[in-house]
């Protein structure tokens, strides 16, 4: 199964990368950009056919490794095969 784990800076945690990108976009003339938050996304191929179980496992991976929960939040999505 294909799982997506998205990791992003927690609300209130300053995001230096997002800021730099925002001002860069500004400089490139994209005036309509108000804010940018930069995160990471992991595309996992996980063996298993019980969606609930796979999702639970993915959460565990995010919790213990993929995200640094001191400053980052995360969410997990199973991808249906129709997507990308």
């Amino acid at each position, binding site marked *: 199964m294909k799982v997506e784990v998205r990791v992003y800076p927690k609300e209130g945690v300053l995001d230096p990368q997002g800021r*730099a*990108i925002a001002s*860069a976009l500004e*400089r*490139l003339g994209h005036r309509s950009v108000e804010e940018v938050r930069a995160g990471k996304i992991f595309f996992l191929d996980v063996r298993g056919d019980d969606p609930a179980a796979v999702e639970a496992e993915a959460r565990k991976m995010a919790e213990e490794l993929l995200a640094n929960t001191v400053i980052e939040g995360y969410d997990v999505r199973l991808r249906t095969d129709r997507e990308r």
Partner: protein
Amino acid sequence: MITADLIADHNLSHEEYSRILEILGREPNLVELGVFSAMWSEHCSYKSSRIHLKKLPTTGPQVIQGPGENAGIVDVGDGLAVAFKMESHNHPSYIEPYQGAATGVGGILRDIFTMGARPIASLDSLRFGRLDAPRMRHLVDGVVRGIAGYGNCIGIPTVAGETTFHPAYDRNILVNVMNVGVVAKDRIFRGRAEGAGNPVIYVGSKTGRDGIHGATMASEEFVGDETRQKRPTVQVGDPFTEKLLMEACLELFRTDAVVGIQDMGAAGLTSSSFEMAGRAGTGLEIDLSKVPVREPGMTPYEILLSESQERMLLVARRDRLATVMDVFEKWDLAAVEIGRVTDSGRVVLFFEGRIVADLPAAPLSDRAPVYDRPCVVPTPLGSMGWELLAEPNDYGACLRAILASPNVAEKSWIWTQYDHMVGTNTVERPGGDAALLRIKGTRKAIALKSDVNPFFCACDPYRGAAIAVAEAARSIAATGARPLAVTDCLNFGSPERPEVMGQFEAAVRGLADACRALSVPVVSGNVSFYNETDGRAIPPTPTVGMVGLLEDVSRRVGLAFRAEGDVVALLGENRDELGASEFLRTVHGRDEGPCPEVDLEAERSLVDLLVRLAHEGLVASAHDVSDGGLAVAVAECAMKSGLGAEISLDEHIRPSGLLFGETTGRALITFLPGNERSIGEAAAESGVRFRAVGKVGGAVLSLRIAGRVVVLENVASLREIWTSAFERAIAAADVL
């Protein structure tokens, strides 16, 4: 069935193809054709450059390993030797600057540690176009990030380099990286597949489809929208895997298990296997189905020609196979026995039980084509009338302008992005003349410098090349070290054009003469042709990388002024030479010749003198005079120290020429007043013109000519300009 189109696709001429038929006595199959194509590409075979490279001096008492191996090696005493080499990654860096530069660092590192040496420093020699040229800021930013990303991660300091901007690099940037390693003289390894029956081991990253035909790509000029066209060959570097490879190999070299080893660079598995067998006069049997692959359905052709990074081919003693596997396992590296050494003199490749190629090893290199391509002797570019220009009325303003030009401005924006301290050997950090690295466990240090002035080479390739050697030697001698040997990276346009070939021939002669005069043999190097787009070639750019030896690191000399009251003196002759100078370009916007003269005997005397003065502890500081001329050189000594100076010159030369001319063979030294006599005597003995020109002191730099003050600048404000100009020029690149 090999068609004419197939042959053309493989960049093979008809003569070359007939030679293949003659060597094989039959038609090659597609896999074999691919092998010939890669091995006989300009990049791997040096077919256009070989006859000229023969002219370079390559021997000397200090030389342990000359050209022909993965890297050159020189003796530095105490049972130690230094391995070094420079290589280009120009085309890939133009297509994808980060990955191109990063994999360039990775490639040259492998050349060093495969010799058994632990890499201790890298140098990067960078040539860019105008900062406002399309993509140029992106290229500068990406290249610097790429070198940093790879070098910092693997933990090898980048301690020196050069950065030049010239319109002729707008569509062909140059990224030359040099690496230097230290090895025990009796623990040197070579790329030889010896001992029939010994296992051939593949270790490192899996083989993917990336970089297939990179070697042939480095042998083609760009046409039209090169970035799109060349995309498929982009390779991604994995410095972490290379770090593991490096540590694992160095650990293995401490055992007696390794017979021979070579990295899979250009033309990947093909060149490594054929060269290892060729050098040893043996043969190999390799089963391509055993090669770890990254993608499904890879053909033998792709496996053989892939240029995936971070891979090594190793021949081990049969009875020590277990040791080898254990060490690689310890370092989490996948190692597979993919074949064995034979005494057949042939390289036989299997795939899924079938023979897919069966070729004689030696002829692929020995009988590679050699071309004596037509040369048009370059006519040196002279003056276009700058002598008639009026003298500027504000020399201080000229100095400030030159200090702010990207070519002269301090490059700390670059080197602060490089870890230049890891390894704790960096005694002289970037920003000096040459970098100095102490060798732990000895009192010694090695001095490292890369140099070439493309503006000089554009006017006169012969002189430009000779001056590159002279300037590198001078910068090394300024630290107190004695120049030992040279590596080079010869960047030129298409060898198929007689003008370019003529530049090449002249530049190589220039290198040869200068290296002979200064007794610095060339022990390794690299040629990069086809640096041109739509028929417009780069200026001849023979980058010189030099290594020097300082017997006693406590005798080192820096370029910064040391103390108030020290005497400032000039060594060497001043001449009225403003041709090809930063002054003409920056102040008058004119790029014209002639290239300054070079007197190699005088250069040698100067180098010997600088080394002697340092050894006798007579000088407090020394700096070679180069880009920007005397005024810039003095300013650099001042800005680096925060100390001012009062300098008085008196010469029958136009002031601008005296201040900013880039006449060769000169250095600035400072010393305690008490040492003036002994220094004067030493200079006289070595026939170097010596005269005291001023005193260190205060916070102001004042330059007089014939009693009249021509420059009066606050050192702090000069420093502000010099240190901030580059970052300001680049600022718009500061995006991601």
